[in-house]
């Protein structure tokens, strides 16, 4: 299978087509596997549950990291780029995460998970509820009891941050 110069067409849920270099597309383990299974003439891969907006972001990620590897980009630059890349609204972030999980792009999935975890860190119960639109369904007694049981959690915040 010649990989150089090979172009893969990814088709989003809303039927938008993205033409991507083979090396970029196969950063997705799912696509790499699919392309291995089908004949060489096949170049179109439908991505039925990722919309164009999100797929474009995902491809942007793959393309950058594909290039970064080729030109030996410094760790700091990559990290800075990743950080900027994650500066999106919650909804987009979550959709990228779901897409990364579906397409099996481990690094992107990990980056997204770290970002979401970062949003949770050092927040109060109320803040997290608001952030993720979680509806509290404990009774007041249940909640008070659990807070009581877990009051070790508030005492050790600093030390644990140091551990991370």
């Amino acid at each position, binding site marked *: 299978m010649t990989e150089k110069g090979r172009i893969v067409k990814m088709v989003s849920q809303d039927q938008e087509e993205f033409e991507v270099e083979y090396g970029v597309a196969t950063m997705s383990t799912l696509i790499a596997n699919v392309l291995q299974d089908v004949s060489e003439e096949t170049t179109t891969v439908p991505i039925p549950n990722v919309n164009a907006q999100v797929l474009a972001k995902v491809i942007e990620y793959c393309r950058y990291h594909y290039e970064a590897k080729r030109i030996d980009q410094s760790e700091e630059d990559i990290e800075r780029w990743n950080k900027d890349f994650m500066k999106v609204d919650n*909804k987009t972030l979550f959709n990228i995460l*779901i897409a990364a999980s579906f397409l099996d792009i481990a690094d992107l999935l990990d980056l997204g998970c770290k970002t979401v*975890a970062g949003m*949770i860190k050092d927040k109060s119960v109320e803040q997290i*509820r608001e952030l993720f639109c*979680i509806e509290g369904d*404990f009774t007041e007694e249940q909640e008070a009891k*659990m807070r009581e049981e*877990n009051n070790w*959690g508030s005492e050790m915040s600093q030390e644990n941050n140091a551990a991370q």
Partner: protein
Amino acid sequence: MDNRFPLSMAEDCGLDGSSDVLDELGPKAFGPILCDIACGADDAEEVGGDSVALLEADVRRLLDVVSGIKDQRRWSASFMRDHLRTVLARSTNLARCDLEAGALEQCTEGLDSFPETVWGRILRHLDGKDLVTLSLTSKTWHKRCEDPQVWKDLCLRRCRSLRNDSALWVMLNRSSLTDNRWRSLYPCLVKSPPWTFSLHKPGKFVSTLKAICVRNWVVEEESLPSSLLVKRRFDQCYLDKFCKPETCTLYFEPESENDVGYNNFVKYLTDRKRAGLAHTEGRFFVFIPPCIQAKKNLNYHGNALTGLILPSRAITLDWMR
């Protein structure tokens, strides 16, 4: 049957058995049906957006199409199945678009629609305090955050030896451990701050050690030394003197596994029946190899290095010659 036709509701409506009939059908004369399906879907749009009514309309249409085919008996089942699927995919697609459009900051949709593996990964980036906070937000999150695996990872990050040193578990003496052992152990592990330091003998680096407080933590995080020099050694029999119930007791593990410097240090002390002593800022740090005193006083029966932290006044050095 499942993989052929993914909509359970359609199966309920009697589509399930249809393929037996359809198997005998040929691929011809498909035009009218395609047209049927296309028109049908357009009609459905008038019903509007993603609704049960729309779905119902779709399913009815499918049933109509299928019953129409029974007379034709000319198409292959697989061909039919693909086209029925197309109709449903379109319906699903509509539903998704609707969701997208109507989603005014639909964060919950996102977070809760994550596959299990995704939020499992998110939890792995949180520490115990944040897990607890998150677990208090709702019952669903409580259940997720109580996952023993998450707490196990957390504990092992703090102390790798918990994986294979059963004597350490005994030493921790957590009779109060609940069924969720790692979860209930974690608070004990974080009573002391994480502390890594380099251990030296005079003129020689020994190893980088991680200390875990087993009980009675005493030192402020700011005054934890980043290196310790073991200048003196003393006979293990003296350990009985200062191993009190209230003494700060430590467990050491080398930062990297199979650390030769660490192994040699433990062997060196063991062979000479000695304990090591370092002194800094008003405190003594005692290093104890596996020995009878460690068993007796610290309840540690394993092969690792344990230790004590004592205030300077607790030891007078005159007996140590």
